[in-house]
């Protein structure tokens, strides 16, 4: 078996994992944008994209082709170095986070011992990229968007980590494969329903999506931190956003919905069904709720979500000690 010997070499593993991640990344970037436009269309009693391909399926590919033929403009007055580096800083965490996602019992690039911690610490790096983009643009809207984005991202980081601490207490592991295996009998969404809701709300806030989209608020800040970006550089921000949407949904699946556990169908199919169910909920929320004000948003995090997450953690651990 030549294939087997190739697989067992370091190079073989590298090629397969890179190819796999790029396939999932591209597939998701095309499908998630299409889903968003299609679902928003149907929520608003429209059809959404219909022209390119069956039911507009190839619309995202056509958009990508258009964007790659657009000129990349660097406006005068920007900080050229930071302006150029910002897309890299936003994009590379979203690719790095794929490493620890357990797509099935066999498909995981690397099962790091500290997978959970790794995922959430890497996800924070994108915030730096967003601030770089906003600051370097030398545009008032971008700066406003960037500082709002920082305040929001760091604030909602706390409830996220406090809610996942419940899972760590229950499984005694930061290894994602072990967390999934611990859910083979019961998904953690059943005993840990409140943390799941906290996680989902905070994840939507981390993604800067409506109703928490004050950093990019189209109607007041034009597009926030990426107002000055054009062509493919803008597309990179866009791709990173949709990849992050997939990744937080994948993490919600792994932590609360039993990951790849499920009857009959192959594990990877279950994983994608659950992940896209969460993606659907995130899109649904976006097209249902109006935008919050910045003060409401910060108050909701600090005065409600964080105390709730703390109380929940204490109650969970207290109940564990009783039995």
């Amino acid at each position, binding site marked *: 078996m030549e294939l087997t010997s190739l697989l067992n070499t370091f190079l073989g593993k590298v090629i397969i994992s890179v190819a796999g991640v790029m396939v999932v990344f591209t597939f998701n970037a095309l499908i998630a944008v299409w889903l968003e436009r299609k679902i928003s269309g149907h929520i608003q009693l429209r059809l959404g994209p219909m022209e390119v391909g069956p039911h507009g399926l190839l619309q995202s590919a056509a958009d990508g082709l258009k964007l790659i033929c657009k000129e990349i403009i660097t406006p005068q007055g920007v900080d050229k170095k930071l302006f150029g580096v910002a897309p890299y800083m936003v*994009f590379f965490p979203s690719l790095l986070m794929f490493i620890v996602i357990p797509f099935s019992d*066999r498909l*995981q690039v690397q099962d790091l011992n500290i997978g959970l911690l790794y995922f959430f610490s890497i996800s924070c790096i994108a915030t730096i990229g967003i601030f770089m983009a906003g600051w370097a643009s030398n545009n008032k809207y971008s700066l406003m968007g960037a500082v709002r984005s920082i305040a929001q991202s760091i604030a909602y980081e706390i409830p996220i980590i406090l809610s996942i601490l419940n899972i*760590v207490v229950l499984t005694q592991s930061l290894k994602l494969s072990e967390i999934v295996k611990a859910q083979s009998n019961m998904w953690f969404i059943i005993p840990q329903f409140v943390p799941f809701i906290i996680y989902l709300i905070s994840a939507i806030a981390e993604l800067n999506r409506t109703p928490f989209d004050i950093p990019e608020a189209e109607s007041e800040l034009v597009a926030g931190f990426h107002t*000055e970006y054009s062509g493919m550089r803008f597309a990179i921000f866009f791709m990173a956003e949709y990849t992050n949407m997939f990744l937080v949904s994948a993490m919600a699946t792994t932590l609360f919905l039993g990951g790849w556990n499920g009857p009959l169908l192959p594990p990877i199919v279950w994983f994608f069904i659950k992940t896209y169910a969460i993606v659907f909920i995130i899109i649904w929320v976006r097209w249902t709720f109006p935008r919050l004000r910045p003060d409401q948003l910060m108050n909701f995090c*600090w005065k409600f979500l964080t105390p709730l997450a703390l109380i929940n953690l204490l109650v969970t*651990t207290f109940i564990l000690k009783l039995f």
Partner: protein
Amino acid sequence: MQIFICYYPNGLSLNTLILGGSVLESYAYVFLFSIISIVFVTIVTIVPRILSPKAIGEKKLTTYECGEEPIGDAWIQFNVRYYLVALLFVAFDVEVFFLIPWAMVYKNLQGIIFWLEVFLFLVILVLALAYAWAKGVFEW
């Protein structure tokens, strides 16, 4: 994805293939994926430079502010409350990192005292939150 699954024949011990390997090998992937993302972004920003038409004119380089001429640059002061929120974040972030080792071993610890200790720790931190609240950090 079907093709991807087919690469793994049943006879292969996949757990050792994917889960095994040293720490160095695990983090080699982190390095590798960083390189790939840098290469990817570089390629997709260089290709349009070759393909795209170039518009001429000075106005395309101006800062977009809804059609108005920009007044001054944007590197100005912003609201000090963002700093206060950031300080609060630092306090809570460090707290969370102290909690992670505790959460890892909590199930094995015997006795309610380990719960009480963390309870006290959290109460002190919530006092900080309450202080910030009373001082009006959250009134925008």
